């Protein structure tokens, strides 16, 4: 019988909300502007708050948390070492993360200027998206993330990702997934005709791949250091 509960190492990605103003009205206004641009994206998004300014207002965090809930975001913690902020966090029921820790945190989710850094980026880093053909001589590298290609990868082109790779088109070039050594990385290809496939350093050349998979929609993964194919129906 399985244990009623068990604690697993955390592998979740969180978005960080960097706050660079101590004026709650200014912050909420900028946040409202940002979330209104992509409400569906922000709905239910887990958020860790990081304060880049010193907060005087003892209600600041409570007001911010309440506002985030109103916007249907899910604030779950604060990244801080400041005593006053930790106190406010405890009071607001938020977890406290040490800023020195860099657990699986997605790239900063900044609310729009002027509250946060000038070149605020409003989306967290998810898979890298490429639209259109990847052409001979071109190389696409998705560091620390998945790669989605909406288009074909032509002969002589290379696509490389630390994570999974999806190709919605014909795959005719060279393909590398899990290139940082991730043996669990998988490849999904709509029309397979690659020159080479490689997962975490284990590769197959075109000549070594059964012809039955050519032109098919396939999933490719590793089983004990062997590259395996499965036709997707």
């Amino acid at each position, binding site marked *: 019988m399985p244990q009623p509960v068990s604690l697993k190492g955390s592998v979740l990605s969180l978005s960080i909300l960097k706050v660079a103003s101590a004026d709650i009205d200014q912050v909420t206004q900028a946040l409202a502007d940002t979330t209104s641009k992509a409400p569906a994206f922000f709905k239910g998004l887990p958020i860790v708050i990081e304060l880049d300014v010193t907060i005087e207002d003892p209600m600041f965090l409570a007001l911010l948390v309440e506002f985030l809930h109103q916007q249907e975001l899910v604030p779950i913690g604060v990244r801080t070492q400041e005593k006053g902020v930790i106190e406010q966090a405890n009071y607001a029921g938020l977890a406290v993360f040490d800023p020195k820790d860099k657990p699986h945190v997605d790239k900063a989710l900044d609310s729009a200027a002027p509250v946060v850094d000038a070149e605020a980026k409003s989306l967290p880093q998810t898979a890298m998206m490429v639209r*259109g*053909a990847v*052409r*001979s*001589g*071109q190389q696409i590298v998705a560091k620390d993330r998945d790669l989605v290609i909406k*288009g*074909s990868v*032509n*002969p*002589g*082109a290379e696509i490389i990702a630390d994570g999974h790779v999806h190709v919605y088109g*014909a795959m*005719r070039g060279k393909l590398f997934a899990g290139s940082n050594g991730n043996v669990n990385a998988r490849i999904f290809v709509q029309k397979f005709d690659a020159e080479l496939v490689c997962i975490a350093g284990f590769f197959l050349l075109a000549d070594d791949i059964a012809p039955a998979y050519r032109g098919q929609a396939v999933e490719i993964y590793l089983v004990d250091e062997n590259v395996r194919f499965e036709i997707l129906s």
Partner: protein
Amino acid sequence: MARVIVVTSGKGGVGKTTTSASVSAGLAARGHKVAVIDFDVGLRNLDLIMGCERRVVYDFVNVVQGEATIKQALIKDKKTPNLYVLAASQTRDKDALTQEGVERVIDELKADGFDFIICDSPAGIEKGAQLALYFADEAIIVTNPEVSSVRDSDRILGILQAKSRRAELGEAVKEHLVLTRYNPARVEAGEMLAMNDVVELLSVDLLGVVPESQDVLQASNAGTPVILQEGTDASEAYKDIVARFLGEEKPQRFLTVEHKSLFRKLFGK
């Protein structure tokens, strides 16, 4: 507003200059003011195909280097009004062109009221070809139905998307495909790639297919863009290409083998 069009291919000898000459003449014949520039410094032959080699006094390099004005160097075509040729130099080396110089020439042509500025690129993917495509708003990719030509066209498309000025500004260069020296019999025999395969691989809109034809060589020997050789397949193909380039809808032609029927042969009908 002037449109700058580069005619490029990567691979050499596929029909860039032939296409530049015919598209330029075709656009001019339809009343547009056209300048066609030969970027193939050291190997000039656009002026030969256009039949104006004897009238080249100053060339593109002279203008880029400030040794002549555009007005002095532009050669007015004798057969087609509104058509002007800027020839390449035969005596200079490839490095004679500079980006600033080319930009100045293109800006001046725009200011002179040209509707189309056609840039006939040299072969390859190096500096000369990159300079020819750098200022382009649109590109005509010339490809033959064979693997190495298609591969090179794919590479030049990648360079257009990465290294043109439009790419640097985050804007797209509009791409068109011309598939030339197409031989339907050899395609049927599996000796050449079929039109569909080329278009699918390059994923660029097809402007048209030009059949392999003796008339092309004859026209260039005669110093006439083949589009002006009335009644030939190549002329018809290039006229279609010009029409589609200007936004007209035309069904594709010259894709199938013309089977000469035995009956006709025997009975001379």
